[in-house]
């Protein structure tokens, strides 16, 4: 029996580790269009910012493939899946047969149609290769300033990298505030002021309309409202979407693999086609708070889903219960954590909000409760012990007995009811 995994990031790596926990024998082939050995995508911004060296990009040892008896096919693009013949077709001809296939193909950066997008000096920013290209461009062209399109998490990563490189930055965000999907209004505005204090310009409520070149390089960008932004470099960091290239467009592809916003999987991470599994940023899974299936493209989920997929592929049953968004992001030196539903837009009367804002100290905490259960948390500036909130959200604990302590400075496990504290402290199998 042969396992084939398309992809080489978080979900793929933890699937390999899970398979090898249960099956030391059968061959595993990894197909990746990137040439790099296992590396951490979230560290790409640290690399570009010269905050880590290339060695630290590898979050598994360099003998990972040998240790796990994996045959890596790196720099090889899978172009199609023949689910009838159970083979993966490769660019330039050739194919790889599989008995069990894992699609860990990740997300694709979304780039809107903008005039001038093909100019040199316009980049997306998710892969190692992107960091290398941007780095080279900065050095070769004496880049002094950059426009970052998108004030979400990828935009913030670009800010972190380029601020460390000493560039003059402008961030433009289409929504009326940055980080609008993970933060509420107050946290967003606080984040904007933190960025401005650090020297970046932040423009909201508009986006780039045109990028204008002069003598082979970028001269400036024009925003929708006509404003001109001088910049030598443009990074699109609007967001990623599940990579469905191997499945869409139907009917040409005819894999039979069901997709919605992402690849549809069951709790075993199985797709609608037998022996084909999927995990990571390419799938949609159960959002435990919104109670809908949707893509939540974050590292911890990819790792967990890859683990569950790997166990099931090796014949050991394991289920994935779902998750909720969570992110820890450094904004110009200020740590922030956002977990769950932080800014409910519908049925607002069902939610109770508790907040604590210290403008001078640049700290803000906001907790969102629904039916006396915590469903969301934002911590800006002070993130210590934020994981306790994550646990309360996960376990849907009734917080009524200790609600008034939730935002107190001494909040901790000590604030929780004794039975619950004992339960979580003694329980072994913690899954978040």
């Amino acid at each position, binding site marked *: 029996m042969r396992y084939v995994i398309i992809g080489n990031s978080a979900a793929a790596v*933890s699937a390999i580790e899970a398979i090898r926990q249960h099956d030391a024998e059968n061959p595993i082939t990894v197909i990746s269009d990137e040439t790099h050995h296992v590396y*951490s995508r*979230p*560290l790409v911004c*640290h690399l570009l910012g010269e*905050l*880590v060296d290339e060695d*630290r990009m*590898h*979050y*598994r040892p360099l003998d990972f493939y040998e240790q796990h008896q994996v045959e890596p096919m790196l720099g090889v693009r899978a172009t199609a899946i023949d689910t009838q013949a159970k083979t993966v077709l490769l660019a330039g001809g050739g194919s790889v047969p599989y008995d069990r296939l894992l699609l860990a193909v990740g997300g694709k950066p979304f780039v809107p149609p903008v005039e001038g997008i093909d100019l040199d000096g316009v980049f997306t920013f998710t892969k190692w290769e992107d960091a290398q290209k941007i780095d080279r461009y900065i050095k070769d062209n004496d880049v002094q300033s950059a426009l970052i399109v998108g004030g979400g998490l990828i935009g913030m990563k670009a800010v972190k990298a380029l601020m460390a490189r000493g560039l003059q930055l402008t961030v433009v965000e289409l929504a009326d505030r940055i980080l609008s999907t993970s933060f509420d209004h107050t946290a967003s505005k606080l984040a904007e002021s933190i960025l401005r204090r650090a020297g970046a310009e932040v423009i909201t409520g508009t986006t780039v309309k045109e990028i204008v070149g002069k003598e082979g390089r970028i001269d400036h960008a024009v925003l929708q409202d006509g404003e001109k932004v001088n910049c030598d470099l443009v990074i699109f960091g609007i967001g990623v979407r599940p990579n469905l290239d191997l499945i869409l467009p139907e009917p040409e592809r005819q894999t039979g693999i069901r997709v919605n916003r992402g690849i549809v999987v069951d709790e075993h991470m199985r797709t609608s086609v037998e022996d084909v599994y999927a995990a990571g940023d390419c799938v949609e899974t159960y959002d435990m708070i919104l109670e809908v299936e949707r893509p939540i493209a974050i*590292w*911890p989920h990819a*790792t*967990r889903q890859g*683990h569950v997929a790997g166990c099931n592929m090796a014949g050991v049953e394991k289920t994935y219960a779902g998750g909720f968004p*969570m*992110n*820890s992001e*450094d904004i110009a030196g200020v*740590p922030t*954590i956002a*977990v769950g539903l932080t800014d409910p837009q519908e049925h607002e009367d069902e939610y109770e909000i508790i907040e604590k804002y210290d403008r001078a100290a640049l700290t803000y905490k906001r907790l969102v409760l629904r039916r006396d259960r915590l469903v969301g948390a934002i911590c800006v500036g002070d*993130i*210590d*012990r*934020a*994981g*306790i909130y*994550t*646990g*309360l959200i*996960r*376990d849907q604990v009734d917080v009524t007995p200790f609600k008034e302590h939730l935002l107190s400075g*001494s909040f*901790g*496990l*000590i*604030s929780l009811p004794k039975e619950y504290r004992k339960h*979580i*402290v*003694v*329980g*072994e*199998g*913690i*899954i*978040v």
Partner: protein
Amino acid sequence: MKRIYVNEEYCIACRLCEVHCLVQHSQSKKIIKAYKEEAPQLMPRLVFEEEGPLSFAMPCRHCADAPCLDACITGAMHRDEETEAVLCDEDRCVGCWMCVMACPFGAIQRNLKGTKAASKCDLCYGEEIPACVAHCPNEALVFEEREQ
């Protein structure tokens, strides 16, 4: 595996667990030197909680299914093959604090003055009994193998 268990009823808030944790993880391993010369770069690797008459120390639970391992983007957080302890390789940690976000016990702290890395219990790697347990005068901390 052997884990540290907490008997909060027996804790008298002497905080010797914190003191000896810090000393054990110092260069000199000498109490005066550690506190006079090596602190404040050092910090205890457990969290001490106290409110009125109730108190306890909260070291990492070394979860069998540890959320911090899923969350770590650098590979710094790893499970030691020999002891099964969850350890943090502080040289690899970049301080993204995903583990702080993920740990439902709040047992991982940020060492902002020293390593700038995640700071957590390593069960006093190489020692037979962790220092906090060895120096707890009231058996509020015990190191045992228990049925889970």
